[in-house]
């Protein structure tokens, strides 16, 4: 005689295979009263499990992961005192994958429906350029555009967390490429980058002081900590010229 646990599992498998509850239960009429509520409950729980996490949360974690991936390739950062600090230092983004209409992205504005598409296309543009001499200035330009976006959003009082993460991510993407190919940037570009990162850090500093919630303050402080390395990196490359 088949055990209840096996019968339940058998029915769950049939449902998963696309059978209707009625048909599944009709095969086991003697156990229908016991099985129906269990199968129904399992389905109700599965429906909860199938929900998507909030998009902003998903994006925040994605940034942390790309940051952590980058830190993994830079072992010196692991000598920092605590895991928490390390994690805070790793809140970065590099990639927003995707593609789409090149025409539409040109018309998009911060906060608009196509804004994230524009960022994705920018990122794709930079990542498909295999020549660092071309991709490094483009990455700086993209980061500068993001800073302009933030200023626009701020002036409209519509600034939220994700664009700030994205800005820092783009800057990280630029600096990461520069760190890898320091000889591919001329002095003028390095000086422009220096001025840009100073401007960005000043903005992060200001946002930290004015963050509306403790969570927002924590997020922006983590980004500010991360940005401490930017200026020394650029100065080091400039000094080597």
């Amino acid at each position, binding site marked *: 005689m088949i055990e*209840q*646990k*096996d019968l*339940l*599992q058998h029915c769950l498998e049939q449902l998963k295979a696309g059978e209707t*509850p009625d048909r599944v239960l009709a095969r086991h009429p003697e156990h229908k009263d016991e099985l*129906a*509520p*269990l*199968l*129904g*409950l*399992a*389905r*109700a*729980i*599965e*429906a*909860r*499990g*199938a*929900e*998507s*996490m*909030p998009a902003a*949360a*998903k994006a*925040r*974690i*994605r940034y*942390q*992961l*790309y940051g*952590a*991936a*980058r830190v*993994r*390739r830079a072992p010196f950062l692991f000598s920092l005192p605590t895991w928490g600090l390390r*994690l805070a230092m*790793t809140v970065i983004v*590099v*990639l927003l*994958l995707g593609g789409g209409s090149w025409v539409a992205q040109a018309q998009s504005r911060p906060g608009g429906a196509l804004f994230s598409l524009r960022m994705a296309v920018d990122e794709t543009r930079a990542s498909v350029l295999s020549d660092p001499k071309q991709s490094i200035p483009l990455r700086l330009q993209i980061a500068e555009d993001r800073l302009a976006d933030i200023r626009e959003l701020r002036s409209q009082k519509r600034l939220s967390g994700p664009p700030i993460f994205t800005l820092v991510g783009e800057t990280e993407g630029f600096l990461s490429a520069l760190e890898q190919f320091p000889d591919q940037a001329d002095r003028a570009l390095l000086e422009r980058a220096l001025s840009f990162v100073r401007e960005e850090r000043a903005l992060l500093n200001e946002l930290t002081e004015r963050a509306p919630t403790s*969570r927002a303050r924590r997020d922006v402080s983590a980004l500010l900590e991360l940005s401490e390395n930017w200026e020394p990196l650029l100065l080091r490359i400039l000094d080597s010229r």
Partner: protein
Amino acid sequence: MAREGDLVRQAQRGDAQAFGCLYETYADRVFNYLLSRVCDSAIAEDLTAETFVKALQAIHGYRWRDLPFGAWLFRIAHNALVDHWRSSARKNTTSLEESDVLSDQTVDPFNQVVTWQELEWGMAQLTDLQREAVALRFIAGLSIAETAKAIQRSEEAVKDLQHKGLAALRKHLAQSAR
């Protein structure tokens, strides 16, 4: 699954995009699994981040033959959860009175809706292993074999935990709805 295996191998070689694909595949399920256990989306988000960062840091040591990737990931998520409970020194004991309106258990069982609050409260009434088996099977979407690997029990034991867990959960939810 072969594609997942390829992604894991690429991620082990340091390919951030491959790990990103694994993240996209599992993020919702890991988050929902953790949300079902802590019933606080901010904590669930932090624990999800912690799970994936730890997975990234440990992936070079992961071996497919020992454990399917999903089971390995949910074991990390479970450990993150245990650490969270240890550090907060208390298990969340939300009372049902504080939760949303309960589902009507007399409705068609295949049309019932269970809220996160009901689920958290009901799951809290189960044994640790029943709770783990139900969460991994129905929220995380792991198979019996993957769940068995994740909680280090036999497949027969998982079927038993699944059956008893669902029955107990149904009983508790039905009693509290009266």
